[in-house]
């Protein structure tokens, strides 16, 4: 459906961090477990460690306390300490999908005041709309509406 191929503006968030660029990059990637909002994970068990393998083709995944692993995406560029891109393959049903692709790019730029500007862009969001078949599946599955409503509920709570 052509109307589904409309581009959705990327989500862009930037922050200034009181760390030098190298350290900032390291903390963001190596210590993601420490700062990632703990309530946001897709596995059954709590997060043990979030891992971004530091090379192109590496995995971005979470190891849970029960030993299970959940994938988030793959590393598509890795250029420390300047930037990296990873895929975010979490669909509208809040599950990982091999063939569902959105992209997250994170840039680290040293600023004159000795701080670092961190810019995050989450793009390719039209995949959520493109993937009408997947959404249809989502809607038809046994937990279909549960999943979708949970998503909307999250939206609601975030908005509230």
């Amino acid at each position, binding site marked *: *459906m052509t*109307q*589904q191929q*409309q581009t*959705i*503006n990327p*989500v862009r*968030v*930037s*922050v*200034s*961090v*009181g*760390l030098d660029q190298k*350290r*900032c990059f390291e*903390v*963001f990637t190596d*210590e993601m477990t*420490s*700062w*990632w*909002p703990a309530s*946001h994970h897709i596995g059954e068990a709590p997060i043990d460690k979030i891992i971004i393998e530091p090379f192109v083709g590496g995995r971005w995944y979470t190891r849970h306390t029960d030993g299970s692993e959940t994938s988030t995406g793959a590393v598509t560029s890795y250029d420390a300490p300047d930037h990296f891109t990873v895929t975010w393959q979490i669909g*509208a049903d809040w599950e990982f999908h091999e063939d569902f692709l959105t992209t997250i790019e994170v840039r680290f730029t040293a600023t004159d005041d000795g701080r670092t500007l*961190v810019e*995050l862009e*989450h793009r390719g*969001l*039209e995949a*959520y*709309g493109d993937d*009408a078949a997947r*959404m*249809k599946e989502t*809607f*038809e599955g046994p937990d279909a*509406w549960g999943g*979708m*409503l949970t*998503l*909307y*509920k*999250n*939206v*609601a709570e*975030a*908005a*509230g």
Partner: protein
Amino acid sequence: MTNAHTILTALGDPTRQAILDLLLDGPQPVGELAAQLPVSRPAVSQHLKVLKEVGIVVDRQEGTRRVYRVDPDGLVPLRTYLEKFWQRAMVAFVQYAENQYAEDKYADADAEKQPHKEDDR
């Protein structure tokens, strides 16, 4: 702008879920939708009106018939959700990163302070 609670409420109805489901296959006029559902055509129109009001469905006149389709802008709440999610994540990152950094700095400051204290005595 539609708030997420309104969308939730609109989607709480099984007939409206079924209509959305059918529309995800492609745009359709009321008559075709009604033919596939166990409810009357006026009832389908009524449900479409609700879906339109919350911004999930849009319609367009095509010759003699009015065709309904899913509106990709209905995904706006999802974008909003992701935006809030990343904002929260980035704030958490800054807090963690700067706390770590601040601890280092205080450690240095304390180390410098210590000799001064000794001097004062």
